[in-house]
């Protein structure tokens, strides 16, 4: 095992990590707000909307993400009639799948956060003359976010690892290059390198969330 060999497999894998990181960022940035909207929909007094949101969350959490990705990448184009318009770029399709799926998980996390907020908080805000919007943005959401942080951190680490599912829809990412090198060179080394790269990513993410948690501790 030479240093040169190590560098020669590391470069394409780091290149592949870009896809992994890009997917992670897109998924997290879009699914958190979408998840919050879903939470609001679930809590809505408009019953049909609430029902639809609950069914959506149930379906998304109750089926494998891999299945959802396969449906979006390979299933949608097969729908008679409209299928030809549903052929998406693989990476775009994967992003869509991740956002739709993770939004459901984040919605559940936020819902838990909302449930943990005492009804006295709403009452105090109301008596102080805050309207619904002010109560939500100034009182409820900051507390909900703080309560949800540890779970958000957990889910984000899972998301990093789930990016490996890109492999299944043939988007070249970290794992893809590892597998290629293993097949080509008959060595286990690339798998360990891949593992190490994932560990570095999850470590950085964990440190980041620990930092936010410390910043938003109100004690």
């Amino acid at each position, binding site marked *: 095992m030479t240093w040169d060999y190590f560098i020669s497999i590391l470069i394409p894998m780091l290149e592949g990590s870009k896809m992994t990181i890009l997917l992670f960022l897109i998924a997290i940035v879009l699914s958190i707000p979408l998840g919050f909207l879903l939470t609001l929909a679930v809590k809505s007094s408009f019953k049909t909307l609430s029902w639809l949101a609950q069914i959506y969350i149930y379906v998304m959490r109750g089926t494998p993400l891999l299945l959802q990705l396969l449906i979006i990448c390979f299933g949608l184009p097969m729908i008679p009639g409209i299928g030809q318009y549903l052929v998406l770029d693989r990476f775009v399709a994967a992003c869509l799948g991740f956002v739709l799926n993770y939004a459901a998980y984040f919605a559940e996390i936020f819902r838990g956060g909302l449930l943990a907020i005492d009804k006295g908080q709403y009452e105090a805000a109301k*008596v*102080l003359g805050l309207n619904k919007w002010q109560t939500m943005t*100034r009182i409820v959401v900051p507390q909900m976010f703080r309560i949800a942080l540890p779970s958000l951190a957990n889910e984000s680490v899972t998301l990093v690892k789930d990016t490996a599912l890109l492999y299944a829809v043939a988007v070249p990412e970290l794992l893809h290059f590892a597998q290629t090198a293993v097949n080509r060179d008959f060595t286990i080394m690339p798998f360990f390198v891949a593992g190490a790269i994932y560990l570095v990513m999850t470590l950085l993410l964990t440190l980041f969330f620990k930092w936010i948690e410390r910043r938003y501790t109100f*004690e």
Partner: protein
Amino acid sequence: MAIIEISKLKKSFGSLDVLKQITFDVNKNDVVAVIGPSGSGKSTMLRSLVHLETIEGGSISVDGDYLVKDGVYPKQQDIKQITSKMGMVFQHFNLFPHLTVKENLEVAPRLLKRESLAVISKRSDELLEKIGLANFSNTHPAKLSGGQKQRVAIARALMLNPEILLFDEPTSALDPELTGEVLQVMKDLAEEHMTMIVVTHEMGFAKEVANRVVFMDNGEIVESGSPTEFFENPQFDRTKAFLRRNLK
């Protein structure tokens, strides 16, 4: 001069009639102590004054304006305008845990935008001084004792210059040794002629500070009068029985 007029208030939760024809007036500068057994409807009555409960029948007027008339509420804007004359202090403080003490005081006036930030900041400093917590302005509520929290909650209510302050068992969640500091702040307010309605189990406070005591039982006002009349010469058996149980 009556500042609050409550007449024939009715409220039920399902089949449970919690308020049955509650009628009483509060005069300006009154300190009214509302006492009565658990479940008698004291909190519900108090909460209906600030529209935390919606009543089904009867009327409430504040300063001559109807918050609700014969069970019918005016439009949202009017309700808000009328309830804004009252501040409320809760048993469990309900401070905002993510905000500092000073932010807790300032959040509402800042959002209501009726005054400049400088005026708001000056008043919050003065109030913190007054309740003896000037050194705690940048502290989060979690670091405070129960008594300190309740004093902050009182200051927060005062930030909006209410004409009337409502208290729902302000000392019931406190360790006995901490009730004194909160009662002292309330006593000071009474001396400044703040109009107050205080639901309380503190018979001492009712005797010493209140100028009127209202006894509720089972959704009705059984008896009301000056503390002297009430405690020394109660008229009704239910009152006598309650006092026997609670005065020792």
